[in-house]
């Protein structure tokens, strides 16, 4: 499962690191490191993490209906 985080948008709330700790991890206080190719077994966790991200910075491929808000969030860019 491919994913990417818009790290311009990310503010280090770390919600993803709690919800999908095998995929997202904080590196220091605010820096986020993630696995851009998460195991499919992690899908449920990753989708939950993407939905919970306060700044909607996580884009996951093939999220079905859930992609819509994420896509909107990303295309604003900054």
């Amino acid at each position, binding site marked *: 499962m*491919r994913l990417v985080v818009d790290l*311009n948008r990310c503010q*280090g709330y770390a919600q993803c690191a709690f919800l999908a700790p095998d995929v997202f991890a904080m590196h*220091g206080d605010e820096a986020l490191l993630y696995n851009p190719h998460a195991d499919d077994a992690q899908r449920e966790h990753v989708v939950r993490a993407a939905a919970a991200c306060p700044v909607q910075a996580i884009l996951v491929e093939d999220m079905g209906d859930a992609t819509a808000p994420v896509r909107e969030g990303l295309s604003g860019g900054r």
Partner: protein
Amino acid sequence: MDGDGYLEWMRSEGRIVIVGASLAGLRAAETLREEGFTGSLTLIGDEPHEPYDRPPLSKQVLLGTASADRTLLPRRWAIDATWRLGVAATGLDMAAKRVRLADGDEVGYDRLLIATGVHARPWPHETEADLDGVFVLRTRDDAARLQRRLTSARRVLVIGAGFTGSEIASACRERGLPVTVVERAAAPLVGALGGVVGQVAAELQREHGVDLRCGLMVTGLEGDSAGRLRCAHLSDGTTVEADVALVSLGATRNTAWLAGSGLGAGPRGIACDAGCRAFDVRGIVTDDVFVAGDVARSPHALFGYQFLSLEHWGNAVAQAEVAAHNMISSSSERRPHLWVPAFWSSQFGVSIKSVGVPSLGEEILIAQGALAERRFTGVYGYQGRVIAAVTFDQTKWLEFYQRLIEGAAPFPPAFPMVDHRAEGLRPVPADFPDPSLPTHGPSVTLSGYSPTDRRVAFTPGRA
């Protein structure tokens, strides 16, 4: 065919070719489909891989927590494209509207998007660059090779302490490898963030055990009899023994393939207007050639209409979306690319982020936090207005400063900030190198005493 009729035809049956199959190329392709383009779409990429994300290559991949061949970018939209991967574009015929490929093929277009990005500037001395153990890091193949080599490295030499070099040094230290960083400026990150912040970056590196040597250049790389890197010679006459050298001397724009095309393309990128349309060498804007991403150089209204060339992830996405939209829109519906520059880096456990154009800054004010705590917000001023901001582990404040930049707010800002310290009461010079002075001119040394045996040793400058 009149204008409107042509556009309608273009949108339904036209041929769009995108040269460059990385972040900007992919996001442009998706935007084209999303906005209803139903004609033929071809993506040409010199690497044999589908579009992948590069930022993890100098971080997760070197740390071994992600694999170099598994950073493929997620797709936002089905793009139904013809992919020509692993074959570089070698020429452009603007009159015939054709792109020439390395395999001899030619691809015709009605609209062309150039998103060929940059490549890592190689070590200038070819024989030395070929030594076993000398690396650059730009592509995923570079990252895979470097990552493999790090497992057996004894000492890593990083040449150039910009963001890439600093991130690599950080990853190597985290892997427990001895690292020497050689930087010709007075501190790391000076070109991007200035000397005040560069000093903090220098302290961070040293605290993490980096052998940081500033104000020096590597004058030569030396191999053993088997052609393996053995050591590097520095401009102060010292030698650093290293079996891995990482050349991180910035990037060069991929425009060589456009030589002679008549397009305004050179080593500094391809000039385009704010609507992403490329200029030709006569300074006339083209109607059918667009540019996006690292290779583009476009005027930004907020920064005195200067032509900015940004190697930023977010710029590639935003500019690709604007270019794609404009490629299939009438002139009245076109949008300007007015993205406020922003970038991030994570190194030595710190999240570094910036908005605006720090290098325009004359002065910097530490508006929040403290340099000594490695947690602060620096605000850059230019001619009495806020022009940029940088945060070290204070991301949450950055958006506020972005609004100040967008609103041309006065500098120094007049607000009482949260966590404002006494040391941040007054702006200080931001300490950027003077762009009119060469930072990498030749090194000239004299030896000998009598007029007859005076010798000049000339070490050429390296761009």
